Each structure stands twice: as structure tokens, then as C-alpha cells.
């Protein structure tokens, strides 16, 4: 169990390092960086490479935004396998709904209870 924490730390950290390099060396905005990472996750799953990474790194692979692209593709592929063409469209959010629904719900709750504050420390 302890090793799984170490692996999650290192793999998750390394994915963030790629993001930081895209921003600092590639001079990309956060939005561009995250878009690239999501697309990368989707493509890796197309080659069947992301699931093994999750098996290996656990949260180190599921927490970074790359996993969002992976699960979208994963859902689409699973449905495509079962239902063919139509599954590509319908399966997409099958696996990944929790991230988006949680963000929407907590975003809404946040808007109801919090106010933005221009504090600095």
C-alpha cells in the first residue's frame, strides 16, 4: 500500500511537470496546456496505454486531467464495441460523468455561498 502512494506521487507529479513545461517553455496559457493534456489522454487510450498506467499508478493517473480524455475515449470505445457507430457518440460520458457533474454541482453551490475576494495572503 505504501508503494502505491509513492507511485501515485511520482507519476502524478511527472504529469504535472509536463504541464509546467508546456506553460513555461512552450509559453502556452493554462487553457492551451490543459487542452493538450486532455487530448493526449484521449489518444493514449486509443492505443490502449492509459488503462495500464492507471493500474500501475492509481490516483497518479486518474487525478491529472489526462484521465478525463482517457475516460471519455474509454466510454466511447466500450459502447462502440457493443453498438458500433452509434456507440461512439453515446458512450462518451458513460465513464466520466462524475468529474463534470461534481464540478457543476460544487460550482453552483460555491456560487451560492461564496463571494470572490481580492486578497493576497
Amino acid at each position: 500500500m505504501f508503494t502505491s502512494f509513492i507511485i501515485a506521487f511520482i507519476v502524478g507529479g511527472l504529469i504535472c511537470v509536463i504541464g509546467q513545461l508546456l506553460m513555461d517553455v512552450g509559453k502556452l496559457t493554462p487553457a492551451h496546456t490543459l487542452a493538450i493534456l486532455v487530448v493526449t489522454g484521449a489518444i493514449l487510450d486509443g492505443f490502449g496505454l492509459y488503462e495500464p498506467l492507471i493500474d500501475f499508478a492509481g490516483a497518479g493517473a486518474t487525478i491529472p486531467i489526462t484521465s478525463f480524455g482517457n475516460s471519455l475515449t474509454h466510454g466511447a470505445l466500450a459502447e462502440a464495441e457493443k453498438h458500433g457507430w452509434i456507440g461512439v457518440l453515446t458512450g462518451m460520458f458513460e465513464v466520466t460523468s462524475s468529474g463534470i457533474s461534481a464540478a457543476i454541482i460544487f460550482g453552483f453551490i460555491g456560487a451560492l455561498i461564496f463571494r470572490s475576494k481580492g486578497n493576497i495572503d
Partner: protein
Amino acid sequence: MNQKDYEQLQTKLSPKTPIGLNVLKAFLVGGIICTVGQAISFFYIMNFDFTERTAGNPTVATMIFISLLLTGFGLYKKLGQFAGAGSAVPVTGFGNAVISAAIEHKTEGIVLGVGGNIFKLAGSVILFGVVSAFFVALVKLILVTIGVTHW
């Protein structure tokens, strides 16, 4: 002074991005966030009916809840200033992008303000995730259909 000379002058006098330090901070903070995620997923596996594969969903939701608290109390932006991609790339960063936009636009009402702007920053992540997943799945389906590869 022409443009080229000026570009040289301003590059020389502007502080360089401390890439090494930024990368180190991103690694540490990103790693820690993923480790927290790992702990939460163990919690779900041990206490509820989740397997290692299915624990991802409640873990992500819990992480976004933590992001809500950090964003609402103005702490996530400080973490972001320190960690850069280390706090932007994990799903908590996605949560922060959604939640901060929602909070920011509450003054324009919950329909036009919150509703209209909640995906202002995170929308491109969803767009590119969905579109790339669509094309990846499509390509794979074609390859399987013509017999180049299999599921």
C-alpha cells in the same frame, strides 16, 4: 530604437521564468495532490463497495469538493501561484476553473452569470476532451471494421 533592438532590450531586462524551480514545485504539489487522491480512493475501497477501477469516480468528486473549499476561501489561487501546473493539471484545477468562474459571475445572476459563465475557463477542456475522444473512437472503430486491429 527599432523593434528588434527593443525586443532584445526587454528580454534582457525582464526576469527569466525560473523553469527549474517551477518544475520542482509543480512536481511536488502535483504529486501530493495525487497522493491525497490515492488515500481517498483507498478510503472508498475499504469502506464502501468500490473496486480499484470504480473508486476513481467518487475520488474525483471528493477532490472537486476539496477544491470548492479551497477556492471559496481564496486559498486555491495562492496554491496556483506557488505550484503552477502542479495545481492546474490535477482534477482539482479543473474544479477550480469551474468553481471560480461560477463564484465570480454570481453578481450577474444565477442564470446569465453563473449559468452562462461556469464553463468560461473549463469549457475548452471539455470541448477538446470530447472531440478528441470522438475521433479516437471513430478511428479505432474504422480500423477494427476493416480488420487492421481488434478491440
